């Protein structure tokens, strides 16, 4: 009986002492911090991709709590999460249209001419520095998969033509591939922008067709066929301005002699992937 009393007594004593001590300390030593911050951060994807323009998810959470950014700036989270964060913070989610990375080149190894053989470190950026990597087209995709390596979301795989296939569902438009490409061939576009010019070579006529089968040879037919003002030829390349012209329709691509401009409903290149193990090897 005495033991029980001692035990109870000691535990109560300790409990009371430290409980009161901590309560008092909490009162006097408390440092104010927005409690919503942690909660919001917990719901962000935590991939720290930077697509929102902030330095990581924590910084983005801070900007959300202080109302600087709208939740929809996060392109990685699914709409439900965005909606629930917005509801929690009592703000508007903001308009968000899904964006996806598009490639301005369709000249894989079977379409674009290789003028010299590249041997060495298998990276586009490295190859680009060695005489342009041996690809005849100085603007086109080198096919050594820097974008695939850079993609944190496993959304890019190389196909048999050594072109990067972007998995539209997985792509979060974080922009890592845009930065990784030494030839600046990626751009994140809203999925509703379906007229994609798959060429960046500012060449014309025969000079253009000499380097690649699917190059834009600047014939200008797409600009004629599209709604007035939608497509303009600039620097020997068609530029699509959705804000300026009428409705974008697939008709603009019908008379393209090379297939450089495409009406892309979903993914850009619907080819079978290379096995993952093969994508990093040197090209022969």
């Amino acid at each position, binding site marked *: 009986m005495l033991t029980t009393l001692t035990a109870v007594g000691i535990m109560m004593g300790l409990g009371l002492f430290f409980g009161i001590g901590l309560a008092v300390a909490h009162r006097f030593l408390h440092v104010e911090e927005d409690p919503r911050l942690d*909660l*919001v951060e*917990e*719901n962000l994807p935590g991939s720290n991709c930077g697509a929102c323009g902030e330095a990581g998810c924590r910084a983005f959470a801070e900007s959300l709590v202080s109302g600087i950014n709208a939740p929809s700036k996060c392109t990685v989270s699914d709409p*439900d*999460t965005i909606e*629930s*964060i917005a509801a*929690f913070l009592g703000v508007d989610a903001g308009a968000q249209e899904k964006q996806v990375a598009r490639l301005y080149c369709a000249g894989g190894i079977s379409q674009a001419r290789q003028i010299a053989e590249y041997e060495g470190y298998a990276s586009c950026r490295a190859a680009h520095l060695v005489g342009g990597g041996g690809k005849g087209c100085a603007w086109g995709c080198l096919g050594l998969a820097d974008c695939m390596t850079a993609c944190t979301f*496993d959304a890019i*795989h190389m196909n048999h033509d050594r072109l990067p296939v972007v*998995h539209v569902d997985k792509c979060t438009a974080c922009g890592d591939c845009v930065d990784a490409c030494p030839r600046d061939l990626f751009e994140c576009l809203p999925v509703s922008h379906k007229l994609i010019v798959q060429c960046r070579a500012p060449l014309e006529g025969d000079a253009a067709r000499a380097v690649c089968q699917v190059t834009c040879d600047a014939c200008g037919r797409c600009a004629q066929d599209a709604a007035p003002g939608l497509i303009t030829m600039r620097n020997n390349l068609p530029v699509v301005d959705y804000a300026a012209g009428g409705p974008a329709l697939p008709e603009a691509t019908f008379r393209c002699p090379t297939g450089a401009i495409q009406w892309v409903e979903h993914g850009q290149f619907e080819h*079978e*992937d290379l096995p*993952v*193990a093969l*994508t*990093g090897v040197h090209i022969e």
Partner: protein
Amino acid sequence: MADSGSSNPLMLGSQQQAGGGSVDPDRMYREFAKGIWKENPVFVQVLGMCPMLAVTNSAINAVAMGAATAFVLVFSSIFVSLLRSFIPKQVRISTYIIIIATFVTVADMALKAAFPVVHKDLGAFISLIVVNCIILGRQEAFASRNRPLYAVADAIGMSIGFAFALLCLGATREILGSGTLFKYPIMGSNFQPWVIMILPPGGFLMLGMILLVFNWAGQTRAKRRHRADGEANAGGEVGSAS
């Protein structure tokens, strides 16, 4: 934030607040089975490494530790689950620890009374069950959010998973390190024991090896499944691109 039990009012989807209703035997089984293999606390979640390494120099110690942990885990899960709507959120961790510590003390005393030799071998590690992350982790992640029956199923499953891992490591280390299993010589009289296995480095190295085998098995399985899936899922979830 009066919403007790949930750590985050924003938490989506995963919430399984058991209201009234009857006990679902299927779910009981699922909660029980997951801890043994699919969410094995040691091999998959990599928790509870301290006792895992410290007491596995013989199979007997491993079993004793497994049993003691199971006892503590099951009973604290029941208590936490029963009290889950009464424990205020701010002091929940402290409360869990006190509940766990109580059962640890009970286990410690019971072991000391029943098997003094084993208790001596395990030393302070029985007391250290208090800070085994598996136990606190299950309270926080499961028992505090589910009805006692599920909590018990979960606790038993996890305990078995943990004990299984302990036994794997303990048996291997004992066989190689002393040539015996449960003190019974199985390697012949002339066997040269590998002393390293009952020393600390052996524990680390052997656990590393077991995890390696586990990873390798998982990867081979994933690869086979990937191959079977064919093109439909091409480029999907292969373990690594090396």
